[in-house]
């Protein structure tokens, strides 16, 4: 059942690669969308078969692959990974839909898109550390290609930086996994049984440290965030949607699944420091976003801030905070994808993302009023307005964390307030005032310019509208997602709680 989630995109890759002749871009796109639609449909089948009340891995499939290395093909899904699989299906489909005018090698472009989607599914479903690592690495090169070949003017710089950072991330993660095997003297790389309890605390801390940095780069957390704004700035809109919506979640998933799951004792020991790290990351991301004049960089830095909430929730290790972390992963995926889609529309119509140049885009007849309306919805959701996905996620993270780490939580709440600051700056600069696509140097001349932006066709906003509806749906009806993940997230906190209880000298 789960293997089909890998089979569909990889079969799609083969189909595209072997398609005879030189098919037009439109045909490649249609085939890709059909494949992605099928993948999304199958994700929903998995959702239908999933038992939310069961906290264990479900729908498992396994067969030995390379026994001697401990590499086993073992897939499973639980309340942590299923929402992410669904987000991957939905956002890859959105990325496919919003891909337009691929000027070179459309066959390879769409094939890479499918490789990424399949690899991400594999990473979320893998129950074997090496299998996870294989899929984790598998999405790197396609993503590098998507930025390096179909990116902006400085794509070479951004893609190389991305590659160096994420390759280092991969090395650290692989090193930690191998170290685990080395210290425990076993080649069992399966997620269960947890073998780290046999390790001395020093060894655990070293391995956990490597994993934290490895996944911290991917998330990204301050100070390993440096690659993200450049990658986003140079990536095309669909790639930014994938990057922010799906690929960053590999990092946060890794934090929860491997860092917290494999090293609960060490995690409990480091948790206070991790909470402070989270707050620093939140505040740094927010303050850096305020200073940006490129819309895409601003949204990228907002991701740095918003990913910090997940580390805070993971550090607190309470049932509510971990469930909040899942909510935050899903809602950030939807909201950041929505914002990048809208920034992409603005860029396509105006040729710039510069906030010193864009003004008055809400102009009813000559501007981009509907895009602006959706942008306001997106920034409100990101700033945590009640009724939308951002609110319920942040509320749960803060509610679950405040008793454990009040200072770090309060500082993170300040970061949440700063989200409103930088996004209102964005909306005020780019969407309010007199329509213009010029720097505001001479107000008189500025007020006399005739501006002729191409209109946004309704079909261009359909993906963004769908995401906005999803943002409202999760905000208004969070019960569905909560029910899906609650059993698994509650079970996840048992292990660190046990460790913490052991450290303090008693179980009750």
């Amino acid at each position, binding site marked *: 059942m789960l293997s089909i989630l890998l089979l569909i995109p990889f079969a799609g890759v083969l189909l595209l690669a072997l398609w005879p002749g030189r098919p037009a871009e439109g045909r490649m796109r249609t085939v890709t969308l059909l494949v992605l639609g099928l993948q999304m449909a199958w994700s929903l089948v998995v959702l239908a078969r999933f038992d939310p009340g069961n906290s264990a891995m479900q729908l498992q499939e396994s067969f030995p692959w390379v026994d001697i290395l401990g590499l086993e093909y073992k897939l499973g899904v639980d309340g942590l990974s299923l929402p992410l699989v669904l987000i991957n299906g939905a956002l890859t489909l959105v990325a496919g839909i919003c891909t337009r005018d691929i000027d070179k090698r459309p066959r390879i472009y769409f094939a890479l898109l499918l490789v990424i989607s399949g690899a991400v599914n594999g990473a979320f479903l893998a129950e074997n550390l090496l299998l996870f690592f294989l899929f984790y690495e598998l999405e790197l090169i396609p993503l590098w290609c998507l930025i390096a070949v179909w990116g902006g003017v400085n794509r070479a710089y951004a893609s190389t930086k991305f590659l160096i950072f994420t390759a280092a991330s991969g090395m650290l993660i692989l090193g930690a996994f191998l170290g685990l095997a080395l210290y425990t003297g076993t080649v069992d790389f399966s997620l269960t049984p947890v073998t780290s309890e046999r390790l001395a605390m020093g060894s655990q801390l070293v391995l956990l440290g490597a994993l934290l940095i490895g996944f911290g780069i991917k998330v990204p957390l301050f100070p390993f965030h440096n690659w993200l704004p450049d990658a986003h700035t140079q990536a095309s809109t669909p790639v930014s949607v994938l990057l922010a919506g799906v690929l960053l979640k590999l990092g946060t998933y890794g934090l929860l699944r491997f860092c917290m799951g494999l090293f609960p004792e060490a995690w409990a020991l480091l948790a206070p420091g991790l909470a402070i790290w989270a707050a620093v990351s939140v505040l740094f991301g927010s303050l850096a976003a305020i200073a940006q004049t490129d819309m895409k960089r601003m949204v990228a830095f907002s991701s740095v801030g918003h990913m910090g909430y997940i580390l805070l929730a993971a550090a607190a290790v309470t049932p509510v905070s971990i469930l909040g972390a899942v909510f935050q992963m899903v809602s950030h995926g939807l909201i950041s994808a929505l914002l990048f889609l809208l920034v992409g529309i603005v860029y396509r119509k*105006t*040729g*710039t993302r*510069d906030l010193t*140049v864009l003004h*008055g885009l809400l*102009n*009813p*007849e*000559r501007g981009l009023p509907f895009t602006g309306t959706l942008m306001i919805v997106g920034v409100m959701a990101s700033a945590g307005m009640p009724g939308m996905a951002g609110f319920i996620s942040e509320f749960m993270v803060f509610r679950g964390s405040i008793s454990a780490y009040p200072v770090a939580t309060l500082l993170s709440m300040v970061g949440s307030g700063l989200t409103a600051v930088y996004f209102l700056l964005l909306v005020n600069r780019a969407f309010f005032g*007199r*329509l*213009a*696509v*010029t*720097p505001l140097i001479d107000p008189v*001349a500025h*007020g*006399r*310019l*005739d*501006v*002729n*932006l*191409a*209109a946004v066709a309704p079909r261009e906003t359909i993906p963004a509208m769908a995401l906005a509806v999803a943002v409202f749906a999760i905000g208004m009806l969070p019960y569905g997602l909560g029910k899906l993940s609650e059993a698994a997230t509650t079970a996840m906190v048992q292990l660190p709680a046990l460790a913490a209880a052991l450290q303090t000298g008693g179980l009750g």
Partner: protein
Amino acid sequence: MPIIPADLVHSGGMPSAAELEAKLLGGETLLANTPDHLIEVVDVLNSYGEVLDAYSTNLIFQAERQLLLPFPLFKYLDGDNSPAKIWRHLNHDRINFEYAEYCMKAMLWHGTGGLDAYLDSEPFAASCAAIISKKTRRDPLLALLHPLFPGFLIELIRAAATTHALGQFWRVMSDLFLDLARAEADGRVASIDDVVEFIKAGLVAAAANPITYGVEVAGEHLWVLPPKAGLTFLVDVAVPYVEAVFLRGMPFLGTVSFNAQAHQISPDQAQFAYGALYADPLPTMGSGIPPSLLMQDMYRHLPERLHSWYLQRTRGEGDVRVKICMSFQKSMFCVTNAAIRGTFPHPLGSTDPQARSANRAYAAAWASRLAVARTDCLAVKPPVA
């Protein structure tokens, strides 16, 4: 500094005051003479003529039939209070008479010319006293209000007088603009200069038309603006209208506070430059932008030729009201051009040095005001696909 694609942003450039003065004195038109400009101006004025016809009818109805009515709920229905008309009104299948009232308020507020002077005169006060005395006898609410606020009902009558005068002015302009469209259709008008001359001739012909206003109260006819006041079309209504609506205008509600805080609104009302010739067409259809109502009204009556012309440009139907506003601004420059041409103190061909000097001073005064108007719309623009 980002590179802005040249086809996204266009600046029409602004002629200097000296250039404008030279054009006015040389008998040239302010608006460049192009076939596109001719279509825009004639057809938009044709549409405007239809709208002014409705505005005029309603303003005269309001002034004559709704005077001092405490709750004028049906003032926009022109006396037809049938359920079908009320439904069309509520369903917004109607002309926006609010814009006509907005123009009336601008005239009343700026208060220039003979009409305004008469509204502050003794004879007018006497007329008001007679009307109020008759009205308060039958209406207890007015009888209560008048002693409490002695200036209130008088101010309402001033507003009604301005409303009626504007209705009479627009009656003439409506016929003139519809005649212009017919003249262009049968070939008598073939250039922008012909348009300006046609309007000038119409204004001159109507210049001495008397402006009067009387109401029936309790079966008795009472004058508000009597014939003996000697108010005439051009000097007492048309010129104040141009001053109030074309030149000064009013900062739009909602922007007033912001602009005032930014010290962008002159404390001297005479220096206001928010009128039709200064207005920015781009925000049309934005919230709180009153000319949007006029553009919507003109859109209802747009001739097919101009509609097709718009559909071939920029966003087609998507930004049609902005394009109507741009064309309307050009047409208002033509009307202003005609008014200036018709009110030169001496004939432009005069060789008398004193006459030439007076003409030059007159042209210079207009040019200095127009130099900061939206003259960027006057030049020939490259077609935008």
